[in-house]
């Protein structure tokens, strides 16, 4: 005799419900005759992966969890495209909008949640959607083919994932968020700020602290109006401001509903035989919006339905991971410190890493990880287990074994073999340095440098050298106050202050008055003094050619074989056939062995004999590209709106304008600019000293980037509307850099040393900016083209020629 199977109905063909069914089928495959109703016209799919579909990481087919064959194989009756409209709890039947009625013995409600739409006028307009299901995803894909501008309202997890996807689809995306910082429900302010920086670097824009007031447009959306009266244009608005449990069906059926459908620890609702799981359910006051808790609930429910013994569901600790390419964010548990909790933080903005652990009563209760989320899973499991972590806190924070931390820095050095290279530039081994200290008697880094050359070039190994000094010299080690070079103990700021105070006007005078130890200085201090004096007294000071590096002295780059290279200026990378012919002719005439495009969009004629330089310059009759100096190098551009289909502004025009404005500027280090015509940023403006990225109706100004030895992405300085403002801010920024930075200090190092905020503050007031602009203009007005000057001055030109063949006496 076959036992009559009980009838089980699932309302909601989503992630939680079907998961419970899968589980049940494993525990008791024969127990039920199952019917599933779902509003969506698809089999069960992985909703989480919609973000990846949008961002290009998966196709729609790939995200199906259970295909139709699966339903068939378990004899499940599936009604897709059916919405259950009522439950007759007395007769134990459900009815759908398509007229189907089905009977149940047990009923599971897994109706998920509905996206929350802001109660503002215009949400019904075409082009206003949520991000919830396949349909929404398809609309976004379609819209991106025809339109350009998207706004995502909501800077939470979902909003950012939608925005990232839209960016991938080539749209210009702004995220509108009501709070001051994004993902405030998962991240603390620091992590949020770092996240925003990353996303901005990917091209996302943010409109923070903005309250949306109305959606504009006739039939189709045209823009978004904010409470402060401002407006932003949009062809598509995605609302991702939250979800609310979908409880209508339950409520109208007389089931107890609070925020969600109220369930006990066994997922039972207030009515017998009716259960709820997933986002629609409220357990101990919480309606979860993530998958993990829903799976735990599903497991409990499946056991209950299968008649297997089970402990009840006790609630979940949740963790969050942002699924956005290139950004690793993790947060779990109670991640904001509160009274009674302690926090440990690690923050390394050079590497873009931030970690925070929140601890209460020696237990880990929350964590935020940014940039390096490898330890996320481990930390999360500790939070869930409530393990005692006393004594291991730092180890967990830094992800290092405890003994590595307990030992002082010296130990690693101690264990290092003698032949290991400490200074890579000069090939100095640990043994050599050790000997310089123990046998050579060196007691300071400076002495070690003088004696072995370790740390004499790029200086990157200096911390190691210091470590070795501590290790071998111990007490005897002296930290000599280091000035700008070995000739003085004075630092940059002291020197500049003294020059100003005593109005010193020549390099020689400075060295004399400030008691330089080397009478004529060295190749480090001489060029820096030359720079400071020129910066401080642009009108009076006469530049000292002999205190400049070879490249700057001869206005060409010296190559390893003693030849030089010629790089004429090509404003914004834009040239003409006539100019190209001229360059080619000169190159042919002087037998230039190599012609190459430089990294900054210009032509480099390499391998030129020094004697030929002035002649070539004369024949080129083009300005110097200053490819050799601590000065404005290039302004790299993309084609921008002139030709590019994405371009929103004239990147070429802006690049040329900037290059003409700052050409020949002397600066503490070389200065590179770039202008991109849209946030796709083809000119790579975010690794330049000053990067300009066009956005619709304005420009983003980025500063402090570097693509060289230490790659650094820019920080956003500000956003401006007009071309003139770009010039104004660029001028102010560059002049402030000229006045504040140490010689040979690139903007990237400078900003890391003084902090972006101090620079923002200094440039904040229009008056201060105007004063800076005036000073830079004064300086620029006094410059001349060095090539022309040399060509026309025999006294300077002679230095390029060899002394003519001597006659015998």
């Amino acid at each position, binding site marked *: 005799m076959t036992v009559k199977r009980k009838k089980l109905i699932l309302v909601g063909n989503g992630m939680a419900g079907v998961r419970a069914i899968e589980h049940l089928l494993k525990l008791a495959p024969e127990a039920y005759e199952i019917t599933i109703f779902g509003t969506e016209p698809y089999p069960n799919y992985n909703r989480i992966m919609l973000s990846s579909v949008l961002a290009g990481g998966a196709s729609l087919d790939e995200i199906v969890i259970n295909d139709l064959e699966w339903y068939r194989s378990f004899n499940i009756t599936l009604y897709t495209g059916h919405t259950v409209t009522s439950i007759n709890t007395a007769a134990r039947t459900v009815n759908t909008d398509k007229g189907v009625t089905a009977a149940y013995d047990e009923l599971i409600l897994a109706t998920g949640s509905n996206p929350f739409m802001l109660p503002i006028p215009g949400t019904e307009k075409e082009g206003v959607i949520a991000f919830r299901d396949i349909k929404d995803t398809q609309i976004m894909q379609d819209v991106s083919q025809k339109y350009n501008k998207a706004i995502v309202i909501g800077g939470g997890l979902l909003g950012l994932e939608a925005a990232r996807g839209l960016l991938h689809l080539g749209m210009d995306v702004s995220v509108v968020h009501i709070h001051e910082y994004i993902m405030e429900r998962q991240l603390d302010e620091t992590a949020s700020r770092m996240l925003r920086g990353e996303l901005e670097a990917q091209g996302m824009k943010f409109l923070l602290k903005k309250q949306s007031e109305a959606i504009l447009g006739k039939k189709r959306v045209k823009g978004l109006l904010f409470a402060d009266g401002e407006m932003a244009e949009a062809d598509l608005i995605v609302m991702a401001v939250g979800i609310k449990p979908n409880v209508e069906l339950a409520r109208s059926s007389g089931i107890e509903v609070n925020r969600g459908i109220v369930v006990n620890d066994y997922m039972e609702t207030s009515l017998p035989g009716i259960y709820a799981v997933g986002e629609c359910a409220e357990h101990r006051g919480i309606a979860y919006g993530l998958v993990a808790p829903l799976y735990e609930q599903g497991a409990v429910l499946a056991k209950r339905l299968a008649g297997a013994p089970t402990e009840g569901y006790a609630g979940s600790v949740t963790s969050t991971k942002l699924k956005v390419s290139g950004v690793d964010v993790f947060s779990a548990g109670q991640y904001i410190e509160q009274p009674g909790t302690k926090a440990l933080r690690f923050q390394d903005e050079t590497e873009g890493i931030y970690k925070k652990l929140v601890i209460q009563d020696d237990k880990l209760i929350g964590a935020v990880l940014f940039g390096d989320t490898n330890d996320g899973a481990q930390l999360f499991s500790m939070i869930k287990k409530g393990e005692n972590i006393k004594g291991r806190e730092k180890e967990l924070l830094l992800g290092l074994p405890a003994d590595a931390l307990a030992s002082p820095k010296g130990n690693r050095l101690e264990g290092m073999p003698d032949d290991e290279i400490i200074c890579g530039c000069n090939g100095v081994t640990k043994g050599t340095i050790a000997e310089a200290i123990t046998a050579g008697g060196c007691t300071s880094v400076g002495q070690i440098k003088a004696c072995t050359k370790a740390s004499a070039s790029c200086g990157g190994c200096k911390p190691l050298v210091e470590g070795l000094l501590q290790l071998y010299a111990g007490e005897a080690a002296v930290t000599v106050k280091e000035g700008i070079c070995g000739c003085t103990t004075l630092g940059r700021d002291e020197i500049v202050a003294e020059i100003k105070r005593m109005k010193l006007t020549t390099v020689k005078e400075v060295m004399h008055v400030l008691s330089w130890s080397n009478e004529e200085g060295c190749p480090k201090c001489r060029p820096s003094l030359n720079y400071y004096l020129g910066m401080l007294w642009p009108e009076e000071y006469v530049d000292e050619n002999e205190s400049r590096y070879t490249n700057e002295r001869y206005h060409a780059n010296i190559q390893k074989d003693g030849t030089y290279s010629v790089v004429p200026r090509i404003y914004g990378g834009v040239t003409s056939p006539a100019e190209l012919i001229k360059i080619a002719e000169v190159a042919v005439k002087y037998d230039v062995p190599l012609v190459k495009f430089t990294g900054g969009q210009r032509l480099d004629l390499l391998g030129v004999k020094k004697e030929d330089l002035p002649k070539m310059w004369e024949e080129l009759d083009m300005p110097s590209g200053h490819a050799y100096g601590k000065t404005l190098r290039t302004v790299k551009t993309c084609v921008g709106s002139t030709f590019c289909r994405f371009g929103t502004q004239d990147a070429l025009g802006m690049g040329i304008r900037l290059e003409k404005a700052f050409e020949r500027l002397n600066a503490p280090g070389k200065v590179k600019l770039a202008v991109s015509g849209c946030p796709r940023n083809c000119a790579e403006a975010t690794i330049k000293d000053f990067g300009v990225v066009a956005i619709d109706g304005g420009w983003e100004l980025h500063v402090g980037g570097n693509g060289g030895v230490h790659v650094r992405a820019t920080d956003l300085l500000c956003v401006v509307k007009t071309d003139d403002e770009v010039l104004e801010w660029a001028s102010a920024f560059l002049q402030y850099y000229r006045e504040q930075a140490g010689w040979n200090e690139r903007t990237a190092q400078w900003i890391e040393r003084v902090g972006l905020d101090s620079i923002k503050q200094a440039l904040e007031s229009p008056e201060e900016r105007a004063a800076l602009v005036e000073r830079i203009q004064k300086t620029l007005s006094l410059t001349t083209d060095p090539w022309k000057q040399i060509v026309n001055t025999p006294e300077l030109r002679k230095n390029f020629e060899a002394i003519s063949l001597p006659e*015998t006496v």
Partner: protein
Amino acid sequence: MTKLLIGNLNEVDIKGSRKLRVGDTEIALFRLSSGEVLAVENRCPHKGGLLSEGMVCGSKVHCPLHDWRIELHTGEVQAPDTGHVTTYEVEVDHATGSLYLTI
């Protein structure tokens, strides 16, 4: 040994340099701020950098390629590097400014 008239003092800037070729040898000529004129072979013992392109500080020239320091009076490379460059005698006729090089 030959003595050559190689030109006039005013052809070399103070703290500057010129180069000249005698047979197969290229020579760098320096005029120090002290007034002395010194000549050395125009080749750094390290990797052949042209010393005439370097910066002159006192009586030392810094090679433009990797900053080795060479004392122009003696041709000695300064510590921590080691090596030697050939030096040549230069005479200045202060009445006329003529420069004579002995090679």
